[in-house]
């Protein structure tokens, strides 16, 4: 199933862009010049990592992941508090990728990405924004991605609900029967 601009916009709306972010307008800088921010991944590294993880945690039938992730990510990075949490979680994940697989998550083949995520413990923990590395990877990386997908119309439709919670899908869908 194809994720569309509408889905990215929906994810943006559901996750709160702060209103300031235009879809797709961001420059994805890859290097951070600031040594103070060594434990914070750059925009570009966050983007690459999030797309790579999405390819693992999204169902295989989902297409258009790159554009979708970029579409909602800008709002997440700009949100006070959340942006740094996300950068830190990606920096942690990439660091573990380099230590265990010699590469950041974005450069690993999908099977290794899946294994890396599970080895961090992110699959077995509950999300926690101020928790351990595993809990933060779960919160900012895995669950941010899952929330964006399953609160969007296409993500909802995969499950059978075209107006999932978090999506302002109007007043028609709840009245509609399964055959339209």
């Amino acid at each position, binding site marked *: 199933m194809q994720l569309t601009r509408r889905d990215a916009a929906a994810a943006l709306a559901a996750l709160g862009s702060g209103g300031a972010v235009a879809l797709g307008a961001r420059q994805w800088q890859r290097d951070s010049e600031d040594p103070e921010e060594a434990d914070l991944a750059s925009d570009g590294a966050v983007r690459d990592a999030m797309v790579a993880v999405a390819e693992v945690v999204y169902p295989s039938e989902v297409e258009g992941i790159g554009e979708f992730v970029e579409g909602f990510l800008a709002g997440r990075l700009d949100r006070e508090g959340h942006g740094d949490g996300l950068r830190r979680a990606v920096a942690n994940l990439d660091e573990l990728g380099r230590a265990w697989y010699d590469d950041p998550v974005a450069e690993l083949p999908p099977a290794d990405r899946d294994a890396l995520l599970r080895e961090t413990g992110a699959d077995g923990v509950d999300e926690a924004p101020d928790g351990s590395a595993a809990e933060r990877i779960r919160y900012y990386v895995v669950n941010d991605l899952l929330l964006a997908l399953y609160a969007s119309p296409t993500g909802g439709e995969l499950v059978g609900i075209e107006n999932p*919670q978090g999506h302002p899908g109007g*007043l028609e*869908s*709840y009245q509609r*029967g399964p055959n339209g």
Partner: protein
Amino acid sequence: MSETSTTAGGSGSAADDVDRSPVSGADVCVVGAGPAGSLVADRLAARGHEVVVLDAGPQFDDSERIERMERAIRPAYDRPDVWDGGGERDAYASTGEQFYPLNQARSKGVGGSTLHWQGMVMRLHEDDFNSGSARGVGPDWPMDYADLRPYYAEAETELGVAGADDNPFAPPREEPYPMPAFPPSYSDSLFAEACEEAEIAMHSVPNARNSESYDGRSQCVGYGTCQPVCPSGAKYDATVHADRAAERGATVVDRAPVQRLDHGPDRIEAAIYATPDGEEHRQEASAFVIAAGGVETPRLLLLSDSEHYPDGLANSSGAVGRYFMDHLFAGAGGVLDEPTRQNHVGFMTSESHQFYDDADEGVGPFKLEFLNYAGPSPVEQALTGDDWGDELLGRLQESYGTNVAVGGLVEQLPRSESYVGLDPDRTDDHGNPVPDVHWSIGDRARRTIERANEVQHEILDALGAEITWTVGPDATGPAYHHMGTTRMGTDPAESVVDASLRTHDLENCWIASSSVFPTGGALNPTLTIAALALKTADHVDESL
């Protein structure tokens, strides 16, 4: 929902530079900016009085509602986190037979618990005002449905209620609802066939939620997270009236918890309130309206004891804090072998009051609700579990789609052994003893739950559902409606306020809250709270 410049406060840090000093020459001081306090303030400000509203919680920023919605969906947050509740400010004890989760059951801030509420709003039935004479149990109210009827109509206009005159069991009404009812859901249409077979009448739910744009607020857009937060403002909350009161010249002070009420034998002189900078202030006024909710209202009176009122202010009767009641949940649910289309919206569209007026001494009134959000919400479910990818999708597909449920609310009688008191062993962030909610259920309520379960099973059987869960008397919980703790009555030896909502003891103190309900009925209380608040405003206005 609009931002107003005359509203003092903000949800920022403790060191904000908002002026929270007292207003001189105030006619009315209102304690609490939930629907009761905000409606009183709005009414009295409209009539030209100088009004000050003090609320313990913050003035929330509307632009943060999307983030609060995310907290509502994500497992990392508990319900009280959504509106920054809990912690030392909201510490409490629960010492009764039945645990009472107080901080799930309220929110503090401008808007009060309606920030969090579901927004179902019904008028009580006529017999609810005469429980003693009509049903043989509990006291009668010192007023009838007819006395409240014009105020109910006004309250429906103020809140913005979407409803239809299709409930054959509801009390008589003259005016149509301000907005048309929300059309029934697809799942209601499945229930309709089963209910026809079981000879149970379904009808629409009156909702304080915009079925079309109303009062400058948008139509419902279907976010589906109504309880605990509506990002669009389509669900009514009391910021509507707090903001309007401010526009009309009232001063709304946030983060200003009232610590005690300074008084002589016959009058309140001042509300002593704390501010985030650690200071205490004294707000004087000619009249005081206590609207701090059904738990904090009696607590504030108990905290304000004195040589004149050694057992708590306005408590010559000993009834302050006593007779704490809630509505109890009864429900059952299951699965069908076909799609039921749940969780598109976060509110209900159909209910039944058919059994309500069968109530007598043995079995109380109850209403039935047909859920539009039975079973798991896929997006919430997606964020838990150790699977992802195709495996997760498979799990979501399997658990979503075929659930159905019938809920219901049941009346609890007022009993003196259920009460809100003070816990001598624990204090809040200002050093005041915390409220102790001492709650138990009672035999009539248990029987009523059983009766509701019987009907619910009958409906689910007619629907052909496989019943997978039942909430009966042992699993029941509260609906978060705090009633009875400053009961209304004609006899000052038995009750706290009279039919004009003024305390028997003090000539310038009124109470606007479900705490004045002598009995609770089995319908969500806030429309009745709003009607009583409008009546309170009339009486305060007359006195000024």
